[in-house]
């Protein structure tokens, strides 16, 4: 009896049918995860006019990737992959089957490592001013000292190809479609690249690193990346100092609503090969009729302007870098395993393609 049950369970868990069903279920989960916003509370979702409320409330669709259903599917998938590995290893004469079984086993290990990574990894976000030093004390006793030496912005100017634009404009006339028009702003658009020059002290080691997108700092089980920046502008309004962040609305003497629409500073890399350096300058905009913001003045550091009846002076400018610090002991093994899986999948598939050809 026991033998029959074991045999039945073995057949069940090593079957391709089960694999197909589990894969289809996981596909449904991914689909749900892209339709519903993730990590949002049910009340917020309901308030925002969300649809399929019962599904969101009872099926955990608003946090589907952390739901027990998803975990169950993945655990079953791991079991299925391990049983498939054993099943394939029974036929040891066929070397493709051995490689195939190996990569199925590695896939199971990979999913287990993903679980470990999700459980053990820790993420912090810190906001740090230029010249400031912050010390992070981790639960495992590690101490990381981070200093922001400087923060700068580089702009890249876009080339202008007017003849090509004229042709596209003509095509727009032929088809009468607004979307055919080149977005004129494209030519004014510039890429901005932010660089945070940081110094990190970990144990006895000190490193200096220019942190920017695609250039994070990795050491031991830690990684530091630049994920945001914050700007603060100190204004003197009618003799009173105020700290205002860009795009935050503020009021002056009159009934108007104002904001600092843009803070501009940094190096512009121009098309002709030259580099232009911009000192900090702010653009103050007023809300006009029809929710349109109109730039009314531009101030350099130390400049003042009369807006309405108020005297507004641009005193100083500070910037902070938002850094993401991540501790993940599993990530290096995940990387190693993923390349190993790639290698084995490559071997199996190339062999299968050749086999099919024959």
């Amino acid at each position: 009896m026991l033998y029959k049950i074991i045999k039945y369970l073995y057949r069940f868990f090593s079957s391709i049918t089960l694999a197909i069903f589990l894969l289809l279920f996981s596909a449904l989960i991914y689909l749900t995860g892209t339709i519903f916003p993730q990590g949002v509370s049910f009340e917020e979702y309901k308030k925002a006019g969300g649809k399929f409320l019962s599904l969101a409330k009872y099926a955990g669709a608003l946090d589907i990737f952390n739901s027990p259903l998803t975990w169950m599917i993945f655990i079953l998938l791991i079991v299925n992959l391990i049983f498939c590995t054993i099943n394939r290893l029974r036929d040891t004469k066929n070397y493709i089957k051995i490689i195939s079984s190996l990569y199925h086993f590695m896939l199971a290990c990979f999913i287990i490592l993903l679980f470990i990574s999700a459980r053990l990894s820790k993420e912090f976000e810190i906001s740090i001013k230029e010249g400031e030093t912050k010390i992070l004390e981790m639960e495992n006793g590690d101490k990381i000292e981070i200093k922001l030496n400087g923060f700068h912005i580089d702009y890249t100017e876009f080339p202008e190809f007017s003849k090509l634009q004229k042709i596209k404009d003509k095509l727009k006339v032929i088809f009468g479609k607004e979307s055919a028009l080149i977005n004129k702003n494209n030519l004014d658009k510039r890429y901005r690249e932010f660089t945070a020059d940081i110094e990190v002290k970990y144990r006895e080691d000190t490193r200096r690193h220019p942190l920017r997108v695609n250039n994070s700092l990795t050491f031991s089980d830690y990684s530091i990346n630049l994920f945001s920046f914050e700007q603060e502008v100190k204004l003197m309004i009618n003799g009173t100092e105020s700290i205002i962040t860009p795009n935050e609305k503020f009021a002056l003497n009159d009934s108007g609503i104002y904001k600092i629409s843009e803070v501009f500073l940094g190096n512009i890399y121009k098309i002709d090969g030259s580099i232009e350096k911009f000192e900090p300058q702010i653009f103050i905009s007023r809300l006009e009729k029809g929710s349109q913001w109109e730039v009314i003045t531009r101030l350099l550091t130390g400049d003042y302007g009369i807006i309405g009846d108020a005297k507004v002076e641009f005193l100083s400018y500070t910037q902070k870098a938002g850094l993401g610090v991540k501790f993940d002991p599993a990530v290096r093994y995940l990387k190693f395993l993923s390349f190993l899986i790639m290698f084995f999948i490559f071997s199996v598939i190339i062999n299968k393609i050749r086999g099919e050809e024959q």
Partner: protein
Amino acid sequence: MHPVDILAIKEKLLLNEFKLTFYSLILYFLSFLSIIYYASDRKKTKKFASGFLLFTGIFCHLSVIILRWTVANRYPFQTLYESLLWFGFVTVIVYFYYFLKKEEGWIGGMVVLPVTFSALFYAFFFLNPVPEPLSPALNSGWFFYHAITAFGSYAVFVNNFAGEVGRVFLNNEGSKASIRHFSFRIVLLGFLLLTFAIVSGAVWAEEAWGRYWSWDPKETWALLTWTVYAVYIHYSRKTLFMGKYIFLFSLLGFISMVMTFLGVSWLAKLLGIPSLHAYAL
């Protein structure tokens, strides 16, 4: 030479590139018509004519890619305009191999050529062709490998879908079997390419954003596509290519591939879900 003079030369090259895109558009349309004509009696001369038109179209298209690569001075798949040109090119290259090698290869053209034509048509008439400098977000060694494998897999999946559509409409069992083998083989290749695209994307994300996986809509749809094709492969093997749902899985895979490539931006905007891949939208 002064940078302004270089810019003037680049503009001339871009105008030629734009003309060549239009020529390839016409040539693909003509080759589609000629393949329909060839399908009526399958005469070798007609196949030669169709193949010649297709080859000329590919040649013009290749020139477009080379010119774009030269003018932009970076890999030519940053903007949607460039992505569509590149996608169309890889798709038609895979199909050309299929067309030359297989007797019944013409049937794939009924899907592949309209798809390529639509991609080029949309890019040519509705998108901005002005090349932009390399975006800081894409300035990584992984960009080339990630993009080239992702587009390679999309191209292969279009051809797989074309083959499966052909299988539905053909009556001859021999032709069906031949298409079946071709479709399965290329889907294995596409699966391999997509796996590499996902893995390289995750490694790149770890370097760029400090997270290898964020359940971003683009990432999730790529994983969905991978899963659907994993189902397709396992199901085809299990049923010895005779399963009645093979076409359904191929169709689902094709839809999720299109969603991954183009639909995610639309869906993210529609549902107000933020995406880390905003630069690609």
